[in-house]
């Protein structure tokens, strides 16, 4: 279980290697890598700047990571999220989960990225050309994606 917030890039292969090194009980590793796209709707995105709430971000990611470890039998997990100015093609976020079996690893990875999108205090400012920039608006589809992981007892909290 680990979370990192950083300005610099990360190497997914190296992170997976480090997370599973020395373990002989991990049977499956799942990962998700989020990248900056050059298109948002009908606009060209030249770059984006990610702002976050230092202190609360680390706390929220740790809580989400802990929740994944409560729900699935994970041997290891890692969330890395970048902030600062990023360009199309740059990596934004990395989620890695390792478990004895593939179901737990795949489901926990999906859960982590869905919850992270609606519960971690990050905001994206897109540069759309001509010196214009706009704050990305939250999408209801992200809330729906996070909501599918709600359990009956915490359904109200997730919606």
């Amino acid at each position: 279980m680990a979370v990192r917030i950083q300005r610099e890039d990360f190497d997914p292969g190296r992170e997976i290697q480090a997370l599973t090194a020395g373990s002989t009980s991990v049977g499956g590793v799942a990962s998700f890598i989020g990248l900056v796209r050059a298109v948002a709707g009908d606009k060209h995105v030249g770059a984006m700047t990610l702002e976050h709430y230092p202190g609360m971000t680390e706390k929220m990611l740790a809580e989400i990571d802990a929740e994944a470890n409560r729900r699935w039998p994970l041997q290891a997990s890692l969330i890395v999220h970048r902030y600062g100015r990023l360009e199309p093609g740059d990596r934004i976020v990395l989620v890695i989960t390792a478990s004895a079996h593939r179901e737990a690893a795949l489901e926990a990875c999906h859960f982590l990225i869905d919850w992270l999108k609606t519960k971690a205090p990050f905001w994206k400012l897109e540069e759309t050309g001509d010196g214009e920039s706009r704050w990305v608006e939250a999408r209801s589809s992200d809330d729906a994606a996070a909501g599918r992981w709600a359990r009956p007892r915490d359904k109200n909290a997730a919606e």
Partner: protein
Amino acid sequence: MKVLYFAWLRQRTGIGEETVSPPPSVRNVAGLVEWLRTRGPGHAEALKDLSAIRVAVNQEFATVDAAISPDDEIALFPPMTGG
């Protein structure tokens, strides 16, 4: 108490954080936002629509009716867009 602003709330107020001493009649987040609007045109513009604002009190998500006290850290921000 400390008030933090993020994303367009930071841009419109022109500040990332400020320390304020609202009157004792300000008891919850909604009351604080109403009082903060009077601090200037930037604040009035940034805080005009309470329904567009999300809140954290001491780094925990909270609702606008959450009680506040002088030692609290209150963060005001738009819905989050990470990942």
